[in-house]
């Protein structure tokens, strides 16, 4: 089900402010693509344009093209709601629905999208929780609230919720930045196993993480305060971290700024 994403000449704005400019790239299916770069370079903004979450913010808008295989996400008549159903997202901080049980959290997206029998639902909830490496920890307390879990468990619950609707693509916006090292490791393992089925894009601040989990890495930077962020280069992760094409990339990776 994983699909390729092609982006061409994409600009994103917050009101009058241009946050990112002229981004063109191809994101490979069944691979992990990492976005790295200094704070404010627009990597999270760019991620949010890939499932039309950017426009949720009042005044925000996008120009340019994003294609999922042969479909233009910003084409006329395309409903952002159906785009988001097809391209799942995991956020920086775990955000399970606090009033729902663990089971209901995972089933939340499914219930929106159609009628399922109890046994179908049970099956998908179980396979999603297994897919998120959480099943063994929560199988005895599926009816307890999701907010009772630890931070790392909550984040895996959010991943289970996102994959339960069987998206084509999974976007992750710094999914480990609010977690401790052990939980981070668990999520990284999970990402490696998920890439068999999904196209995964992950924004990260942590360069070791990008090096560990991703196949491709894109480096974003901005010319200065108030300037829009730009894609500097994108290549195989091993290449970016050993022999980058641009001086700025090398400076960033070796910790000279950012």
């Amino acid at each position, binding site marked *: *089900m994983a699909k390729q994403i092609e982006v061409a000449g994409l600009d994103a704005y917050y009101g009058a402010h241009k946050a990112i400019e002229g981004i063109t790239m191809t994101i490979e299916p069944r691979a992990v693509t990492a976005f790295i770069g200094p704070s404010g370079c627009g990597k999270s903004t760019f991620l949010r344009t890939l499932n039309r979450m950017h426009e949720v913010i009042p005044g925000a808008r996008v120009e340019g093209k994003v294609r999922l295989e042969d*479909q233009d996400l910003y084409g006329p008549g395309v*409903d952002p709601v159906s*785009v988001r*159903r*097809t391209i799942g997202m995991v956020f920086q901080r775990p955000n399970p629905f606090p009033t729902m049980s663990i089971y209901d959290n995972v089933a939340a997206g499914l219930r*929106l999208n*159609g009628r399922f029998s109890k046994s179908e639902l049970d099956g998908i909830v179980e396979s999603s929780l297994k897919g998120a490496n959480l099943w063994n920890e929560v199988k005895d307390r599926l009816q307890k609230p999701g907010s009772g879990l630890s931070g790392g468990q909550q984040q895996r619950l959010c991943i289970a919720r996102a994959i339960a609707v069987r998206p084509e693509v999974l976007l992750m916006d710094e999914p480990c930045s609010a977690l401790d090292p052990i939980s981070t490791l668990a999520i990284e393992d999970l990402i490696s196993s998920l890439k068999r089925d999904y196209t995964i894009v992950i924004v990260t601040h942590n360069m070791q993480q990008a090096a560990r989990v991703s196949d491709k890495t894109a480096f974003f930077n901005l010319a200065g305060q108030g300037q829009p962020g730009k894609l500097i280069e994108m290549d195989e992760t091993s290449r970016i971290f050993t022999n980058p094409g641009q001086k700025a990339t090398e400076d960033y990776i070796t910790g000279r700024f950012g």
Partner: protein
Amino acid sequence: MTTVQTGIQPISTSRRVKDRIVHVLVYLAFAIAVIPLVSVLWLVIKNGMHRFDLEFLTHSMRNIGARDAGGGAYHAIIGTLEQVSLASLIAVPIGLLTAVYLVEYGSGGRLARSISFFVDVMTGVPSVVSGLFVLAFWILALGMPFSGFAGAMALSILMMPVVVRSAEEMLRLVPNDLREASYALGVPKWRTIVKVVLPTAFTGIVTGVMLAVARVAGETAPLLLTVFFTDSINNDPFNGPQMGLPLYVFDQAGRPTDTAIDRAWTGALTLILIVMLLNLVARLIAWWRSPAKRGS
């Protein structure tokens, strides 16, 4: 689970329709809420303009017979201004000091918690009950006469919790760094409060007080029980019945003649103008205080 969906599938019609219906209902709710506001304001302005003249603003109802035209609300306007000023004189110091206690001294102790709780309770005291209390205490138990001051006491009970809550909120907004900076200079606590904390929160507190004044200026029920009715001018709020503008509207509205109803509308117009003016001043002060927040 045998069908594997690919690509972007449009969402079902029923979901889309439901979303649209709620969208329309929400807009409709707002429209419904605005209808009475427009209707009230329109009728008050249209009917109130009839008699909104110099005579209305400068004459009382003295020697105006039941069926006579003419007459005015001068006595009621004077009464309302005096009663509301007196009420503020009572409520603002007590309310402000209570807020200072809650924020600066109480620090979550038992007394502070019970005061805070009863301020909430006081917010819910029906206005007629505050009138009954002043009636029972001041007029019946102490044998004092009906007077503008009695009305002011009843109004002050309604004002106090509003003043406390808004002042408390403003005082809590004053950053602690400011207090600590002052203590570090060796300024005693009370001078810190008077010279640093209160001035910082000043405009916010004024806004809260103005809104409280606007709220009680339109109250009728407590006046009804404490100032009694009169058709004559009484400039002395401490002695004898004194009219108030809301009471005037109530009185005239209850009379059967058209001339009285006209006066009621004009009284309502005058009252709304006073209340809206107070609200406007409060909003302007709040707006002026935070130029940065103009957009929001």
